[in-house]
């Protein structure tokens, strides 16, 4: 912080960064709104097709992924707590665990996609399955778009956590100055929040 800074104190600068991060999270969540609206609309229009299509959702993998993300939210929160208590190595460890969870999530997602594609449940005009009512393709297209957009955010989150782990290892974070870490963990929690809604909507509704 230089003498020319527009901030009167470090605390104010950190509080501003925190607010900026929340504004960013609010904005990012709106990105999913359109897809959710489309899903809701098509479900109203084609209740049978969507019901039948949802039967083919891999509830097991989806549920494991849910537990993975919930637990990863815990581990990033513990990483932040470790920094607040000045424990550098614990911070790095918890971050690495969280990254592992994130990677596991993405891998399971790819497995699910591979399975669906193998069965001919591809998005849009690539859909070749014949076992379901015709408009079921819309369920799958939205499934790929919703989970794909989410998985992109998971991947970005993994990269952010990785960068934070490097910085933590370097000793950049102290108990009173670690706003980047805090903002990074907020981003990860958003990723969890979105999935908390996607999981029942895509996998559990009959």
């Amino acid at each position: 912080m230089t003498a020319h800074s527009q901030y009167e104190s470090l605390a104010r600068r950190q509080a501003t960064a925190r607010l900026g991060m929340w504004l960013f999270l609010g904005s990012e969540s709106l990105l999913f709104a359109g897809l959710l609206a489309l899903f809701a609309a098509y479900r109203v229009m084609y209740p049978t097709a969507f019901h039948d299509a949802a039967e083919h959702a891999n509830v097991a993998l989806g549920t494991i992924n849910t537990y993975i993300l919930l637990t990863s939210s815990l581990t990033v929160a513990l990483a932040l707590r470790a920094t607040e208590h000045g424990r550098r190595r614990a911070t790095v460890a918890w971050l690495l665990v969280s990254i592992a969870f994130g990677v596991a999530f993405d891998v399971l997602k790819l497995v699910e996609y591979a399975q669906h594609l193998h069965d001919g449940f591809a998005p849009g005009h690539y859909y070749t399955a014949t076992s379901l009512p015709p408009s079921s393709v819309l369920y799958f297209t939205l499934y790929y778009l919703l989970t794909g957009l989410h998985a992109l955010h998971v991947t970005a989150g993994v990269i952010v956590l990785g960068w934070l782990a490097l910085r933590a290892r370097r000793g950049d974070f102290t108990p009173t100055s670690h706003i980047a870490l805090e903002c990074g963990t907020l981003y990860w929690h958003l990723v969890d929040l979105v999935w908390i809604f996607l999981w029942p909507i895509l996998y559990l509704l009959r």
Partner: protein
Amino acid sequence: MTDYLRAESGIRSWLGTTDHKRIAIMYLCAVTIAMMLGGAFAMLLRTKLLISGPGIMEPLTYNRLFTWHGLTMVFMFMIPAIPAVFGNFMLPIMVGAKDLAFPRINLASFYVYCAGAALMLWGMVHGGADTGWTFYAPYATTSPTDVAPIAIGVFILGVSSIMTGLNFIATVHMLRVEKLGWMQLPLFVWAIYATSIIQVIATPVLGLSVTLVALDHALGMGLFDPALGGDPVLFQHLFWFYSHPAVYIMILPAMGVVTEIAPTFARKNILSYRAIAFSSLGIAFVGFLTWGHHMFVAGISQLDAALFGVMSMFVAIFSAVKVFTWIGTLYRGSIALTTPMLYFFAFIYLFAFGGMTGIAVATTSLDVHWHDTYFVVAHFHFIMIGGTLTAFLGAIHYWFPKMFGREYPEKCGVLSAIGVFVGFNLTFVPQFLLGNAGMPRRYYSYPDQFHVLNVCSTLGAYLLGAVMVFTLGYLIVAVFTGKRTSANPWGSRGFEWRVPSPPPTENFDEPLDPTIGCYDYDRA
């Protein structure tokens, strides 16, 4: 202390700056180029409309021109113009801060804008998009032109918009100088704040909609394809959920500008501070409830249409409150007819007129007749040119001394204001008549009975274009050779006029003292 223009020299000190004022100037150059480009597209398409039948250009060219005109004007000029130029320059000073909350994000937003604009322009050069700026499915998803790069360009421009809005909200919350409460803020700040809320919330939905169009067009996602069970009207829901609040992104900052101009040149306090401040928030929020009024005849349920019609009436109340407050501010004021004040009067008249035609088209049963005709085209140009561009020009002239430390030639300014007003009316009043008589918009040719009015409109457009070029000319000359001015040539109480013209890099030599209000003209 030296001013921000002279503080450091060399191209790198500009391209790598984090000074909000320099970033504002760079944005000014960019949006001015965009405006001129969008205007050029308009001149070309109006030229085609000089004749009623085929000729002058191919139909596909004409379709491209109105598409590019809309895209360039909306996304490269109207949305960023007042916030990214005047919001950037004035907001920190108006809250007593040395810079915005996130100066590097500010600079990044400029480069993201450039990237988005570049991609859009590249797409245009590649012949892209004859779909209209609204990208409606199913045409946009099946058009033979190259829609995807332009759609992604719009997405990227949207990201820039979100970055700007986020920065402004954080700045207003966290960087207000001591003793400056919310109800002491300049009303331009309230306007920018309300605009920023819309930018942050609505723009991601636009990002998604244009991405879906790009995916549909390039990869056959088929979400709006009836062959797969898709409903094209759903695209319109997603598109207008952003694009209606977007028009409030375009008008709210303009309203903020005129709210600053009126007290200065009437030497009087604003009639009701709260009316202006809260109506800005009202427009921002209620504006989100009205998007279906673009879709009355698209095939939505009539119950839904009725709901949207009623909400559209409500949102107009806030604008009306503002218009009466502005006029009431002039009552018993001591009015100086400077260029900014001429633009103020043009704004009041054109915005009120255009706003009333907005109520007209919000009436579902009437819109059935006017939808997709020139009546709607005239309505929104009254607001966008008569409202936003007029305010933009007023802002440029009002804040010219502050930004450049020089005077512009006042006689040229008066001429420009009159010229813009006359040219604008000649262009668009005939379009109300054309639309009411049934001439559809976006049509390449038209029945002969509409010929005279079309010629009148085109000649008005040429006049408007010439006046804009003239205005750009004398302003650029004045930047370099205008007579040097004092800190506060207009004698305004506004906070931005309490620092030198041009301001030093860090804005304030001593902290701003907000105990003397920014509209406090009762004091001697």
